[in-house]
């Protein structure tokens, strides 16, 4: 697949997965592990997709798309991250740098996506007003139209964000990318404690420390076997 084709395929995937976060279905397809696995299949490297997805999942474990609370665009960010890793690997970067830089770009993309989601939700306010105006005349068509436009806007926002960041990465990041380097990226070393920190921070009782410690000991024992 050419790089333009890869960017187009990833943008399409990003747009579809972006819908899942709140707008449609909410089947967890927009969660980083799932989005990463799917994007990994697109670039032909499921392992990289899962590694990036796992790190982002741990960072964003506490992200709750509830009510008016702002939330990062996790699906688009993950797909973009996996695409950036593919671009960097193609440019000659070792796996360590490719995945490490890709995660950083993904997190920044998530923040940009958060800003875009707020804009789309403001557009939804106009769509809702339009639906209410039409409803006063007994027409339900405004509701169907509002739903269709809102889905289209959210898809477009996700896909366009993916195209812009991936095109920038293709033009800039790959030229300044480090060549070679580590063949292993220690994402778990920093992402796992951040995930565990969220579990402890939002827990009410002290029992969480016992459960967490039990898990840590079991993890060390099992991994050392």
């Amino acid at each position, binding site marked *: 697949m050419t790089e333009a084709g890869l960017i187009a395929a990833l943008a399409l995937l990003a747009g579809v997965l972006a819908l899942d976060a709140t707008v449609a279905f*909410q089947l967890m397809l927009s969660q980083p*592990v799932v989005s990463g696995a799917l994007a990994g299949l697109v670039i032909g490297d499921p392992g990289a997709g899962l590694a990036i997805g796992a790190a982002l999942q741990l960072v964003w474990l506490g992200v709750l798309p509830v009510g008016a609370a702002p939330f990062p665009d996790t699906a688009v960010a993950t797909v973009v991250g996996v695409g950036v890793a593919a671009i960097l690997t193609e440019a000659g970067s070792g796996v360590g740098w490719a995945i490490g830089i890709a995660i950083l770009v993904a997190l920044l993309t998530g923040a940009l996506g958060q800003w875009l989601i707020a804009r789309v939700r403001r557009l*939804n306010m106009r769509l809702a007003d339009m639906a209410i105006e039409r409803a006063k005349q007994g027409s339900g068509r405004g509701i169907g139209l509002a739903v269709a436009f809102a889905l289209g806007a959210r898809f477009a926002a996700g896909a366009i964000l993916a195209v812009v960041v991936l095109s920038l990465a293709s033009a800039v990041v790959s030229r300044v990318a480090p060549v070679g380097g580590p063949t292993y990226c220690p994402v778990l070393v920093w992402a796992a*404690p951040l995930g565990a*920190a969220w579990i402890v921070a939002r*827990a009410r009782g002290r029992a*969480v420390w016992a459960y967490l410690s039990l898990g*840590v000991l079991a993890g060390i*024992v*099992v991994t050392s076997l």
Partner: protein
Amino acid sequence: MHTPKESGHQEEEGRLSTASRLAVFARSFLLQSVWNPRGMQNVGFCFALMPVAPPESERAERAAFLERHLKFFNTNPTLASYVLGATAAAERAGRGAAEADDLKRALAGPLGMAGDGLFWGALRPFAALVGVLGVLAFPLYAAAAMLAIYNVPHVVLRWRGIVRGAELGGAAARDMLGPGFRELVSLLRAAAAVIGGLIVGWAIAGAGGGAEWRAVVVGVYFTLGVAAARLSVPPTVIGIAGAIGGLVLMATGVAGG
């Protein structure tokens, strides 16, 4: 008042046919499609109820139906199906104008708290951590396991909400908040903590370079992460700092390989 016969549905008043239930159920997945800061889920709620709306020939009744269901509405998106089921049954029985607002008020709050606690606060982190553990232990099935753990209860409860909401009306929240609900949430949270610990243990003792430093690095990140979370620093900001730190660790050879 529109009757079931006039609106084209073969169902008794007050009882939802399987076709109506399925139509409302399918549309409930778009409840948040037009989420907006003013009415929140209002347009999606009305969209989901359209299968039980009066026909277009009854313009005044249809306008009144649309007006009462385009008012502000917000609750947990999965358990909103209970409100949809109860409201759809009231509309079918011709009691929509009298009861819809009270039903929504009675159900949205308790179901919102229950659903957010169960789905967002317990089941989603648990499924997500199983997914991350899966990436380490059984990568081929990680995403599938995560999707199955979350979506089996999610889709079952969405459907059950339509059915039980129609049967129980304003008392539908009891179906969710019965005995064992709190224990289930606590169990899922405890399991999530154990799995989170397993992943941290894996990070300390797993493969890769810098084994002698890893426990220290994990401890430092954990301490900073708890402090940042308690200070309500957004997770993305904490993550960016973590990712930059990860690159520094790799560049200095402390971790990576």
